[in-house]
């Protein structure tokens, strides 16, 4: 294991990773201060004959300082995280012309409906593929997530995407891949005995290859419906 986050292949992933490593720096600093402090005190003030502990009940200045410092750090982190969160999840952040794909989870598979060449879901060139999620690189994608039975969670580690699929709800999320490649969808919410194998293939195409793939599939879909 190499103690790092997996390869990042999305725009929001870059933001998330930056925040992750920022928190890493802050928490590591705090960790080193506390742990080394504890160990140092254990050594420095270890029991000795004749030593008497200092008789004190506290110090207001010190306590105000170590209340205020974490508070300030947390306020900063809250504001910073909030801005990133808004860029990823707020309704206003959704790009208008994004490619919209419907993902319907059920025990234990992902049914993925593509809008076809006309990029409109619900038209008759739509096509549905089980357990294959194919998207273009460098283009915003909206996934409309649904579930037929129990709660599942749509997780693609390399795209830093995770969202529960809840029965009775349609939950939109969006992301934009920055690199082509093959990944996997995993189910991240316990959904029954097949939870562990509820996976699907993810393929991020380059733009021309994606257009070719969609055109082929749409034509096939139209052929079937006629």
């Amino acid at each position, binding site marked *: 294991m190499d103690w790092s986050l997996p390869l990042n292949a999305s725009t929001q992933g870059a933001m998330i990773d930056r925040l992750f490593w920022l928190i890493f720096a802050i928490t590591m600093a705090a960790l080193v201060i506390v742990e080394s402090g504890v160990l140092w005190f254990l050594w420095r003030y270890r029991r000795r004959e004749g030593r008497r502990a200092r008789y004190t009940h*506290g110090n207001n200045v010190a306590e105000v300082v170590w209340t205020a410092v974490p508070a300030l750090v947390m306020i900063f982190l809250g504001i910073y995280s909030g801005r990133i969160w808004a860029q990823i999840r707020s309704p206003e952040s959704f790009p208008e012309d994004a490619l919209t794909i419907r993902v319907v989870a059920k025990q234990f598979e992902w049914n993925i409906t593509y809008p076809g060449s006309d990029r409109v879901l619900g038209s008759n060139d739509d096509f549905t593929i089980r357990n294959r999620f194919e998207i273009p690189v460098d283009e915003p994608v909206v996934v409309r997530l649904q579930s037929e039975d129990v709660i599942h969670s749509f997780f693609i580690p390399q795209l830093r995407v995770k969202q529960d699929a809840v029965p009775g709800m349609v939950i939109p999320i969006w992301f934009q891949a920055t690199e082509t490649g093959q990944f996997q969808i995993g189910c991240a919410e316990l959904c029954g005995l097949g939870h562990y194998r509820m996976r699907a293939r993810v393929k991020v195409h380059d733009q021309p290859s994606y257009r070719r793939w969609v055109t082929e599939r749409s034509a096939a879909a139209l052929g079937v419906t006629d």
Partner: protein
Amino acid sequence: MTSHAATIETGVRRPERGLGVYDKKVGMWVFLCSEVMFFTGLIGSYIILRFGASSTWPMPGEVLNVPVTAVNTFILICSSMTMVKAFAAIEHGDQRGLRLFLLATAVIGALFVSVQVYEYRELIHHGFLPSSGLYGATFFTMTGFHGFHVTVGVICMLWVTARAFRGGYTLEDHQGVEVIGLYWHFVDLVWIILFTIVYLI
């Protein structure tokens, strides 16, 4: 805060007074806080489900028989009155009044439960069940748990009444009467809230 305990006080003789209320009463108040949270869980779920419901919610009186339940509500309020009377009686050392009003409270409480059982039978007879959508589920769960609380109250009330007939409460010591009274009034109050939100709006 430095060394503020360096000076040591001189001795004390009396126990710390706490709330100045006897244990059983504190205990009952504390327990009622827990009961409040239980009914908050049920009523809160009802509110969320009702306002999140996609289909329309039945109007008052459409499914439920509001007049019968209104009378039943009045019956329950009467039992609270007799409970107050019972407590007032023993506050004055009136044993006869205590027994009479405790017994009345238990009987009226039992009457309330009986009317509720009758109401349930009628509803079920007309095909309205806990499985009849969210309306049925929330209705039977909330009123059912309230009815369960009244039933437990009646059983305890009978126990207190029996003790009263044996002269177990005096002018000086009648904690049991006050404590069951607290519970009784609480259950009554919950019903008034339930009646309002389930039957009237």
